[in-house]
């Protein structure tokens, strides 16, 4: 089950809209598939993200995976806790394992993302 107040990408990122900002992370399914996450590289505050462009990487013991921005916008906050505790992404991907907070460049982009039911269908189809 995924939280139904979020929006999702096919690449397993989630977005939670709060006013004109959005919080971004990766889903439980993505974290489970990656396995133990040992390193997260995030952009600096002030960086402007383009929708669907890579904005960072997440590394498990075995593999390096790109993070794709679900929405465009300026980074206004990053989860510094992940520098010392990358395992938060495995443990609480929808909570303390969040990654960046962006000021939405175009709120309409959120409407184009998958809802929870749509995302669950994608996961179920593998």
């Amino acid at each position, binding site marked *: 089950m995924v939280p139904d107040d979020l929006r999702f990408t096919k690449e397993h990122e989630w977005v939670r809209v709060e006013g004109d900002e959005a919080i971004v992370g990766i889903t439980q399914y993505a974290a489970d598939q990656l396995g*133990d996450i*040992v*390193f997260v590289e995030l952009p600096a505050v002030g960086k402007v993200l383009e929708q669907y462009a890579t904005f960072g990487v997440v590394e498990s*013991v075995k593999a*390096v995976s790109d993070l794709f921005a679900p929405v465009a916008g300026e980074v206004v906050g990053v989860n510094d806790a992940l*520098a010392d505790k990358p395992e938060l992404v495995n443990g609480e991907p929808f909570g303390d394992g969040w990654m960046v907070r962006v000021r939405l460049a175009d709120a309409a982009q959120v409407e184009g993302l998958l809802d929870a039911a749509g995302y669950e269908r994608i996961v179920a189809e593998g």
Partner: protein
Amino acid sequence: MTEATTTTPLPSPLLDRHERLGAKIVEFAGWLMPIQYAGILEEHRAVRSAAGLFDLSHMGELVVEGPDAGAALAAALVTDPPALAVGRAQYSMICADDGGIMDDLIVYRLAEDRFMVVANASNARVVSDALAERMEGFQAVLDDRSLATGLVAIQGPRSIDILGPLTSLDIGAIRYYGIAEGVVAGMPVQVARTGYTGEDGFELFADVDRVGELWDTLLEAGRPHGQVPVGLGARDTLRLEAGMPLYGNELDASTNPFEAGLGRVVKLSKPGDFVGRAALERVVRDGVGRQLIGLEMRDRGIARHGYPVLAPASADAPAGPVGSVTSGTMSPTLGTAIAMAYARPVDAGPGTMLAVEIRGVPVAAEVVPLPFYKRPA
């Protein structure tokens, strides 16, 4: 890196057991093998603190037998198997004429005229073919027992407590790199005190039709000791911490044993010719152009296979690439990112500051002695 294979992968003889244990299964070297069960970090830590049980049935077992078996292997490999006492083993390599490594091996002397050569799964066929060719003219026969043999390993400080009660063998008396035949869990098993984790432990060779029973017995007996099943993912992080090379990463056909820091394994003093001798003698005379080093990252980032190694400017050369990373990971035991890499001999001294280029950015790394991890005495 394994050779590309278009044939259907072989299932491990324990595949159904791995699936019941919830393992993630991958194709590796032409076999379907477990890469992880509960998770790489948890499995890694269990091996360091208690014990882990590994399925290594994909490995190649080649038995060489006959009055000339030792002499044939001495001509085929870089080591001197006739010097082994019965019940002893040695780490070895098979090289090509140009001194390049075709595979790294363990050679066990099972009897006066019988040896077992254990090869990497990805190279088992190549090694088998090369041995057969190099044994021509010797009174010895090669029996490829790879598909008839199941192999499980128990590794970690509790190994001896778990395995001991399951056998009449005095396993404490088997020395490191020793092997003995005995009955374990009611079946004949070759018990070797070898491994690929940096911990004490045993590798058990059994008939492929009965290795399932052996696995079940060990899994059950080990549970109260904190033993868990361990997949190939943690096997890789364990061997990397222990500074042990992996064929396809640190070793390949374009690398000679001296570059890989394994010159001590090559017995140039042994009598007689062996494949690669002339080339390896030239390497000793002329020196190596690159050398395997250990790196610990001093800034944030994880070096991975293939990333460039950079050196600062020196009197002789401008700043720039001097080698590349062969293996790298976040070390679960040390909590820092570690890597093995090839670099120039001038860069190889512990304490030398280099950098690894990670996604276009140089990240500081310090040369450290290998291994990264040594088990407490």
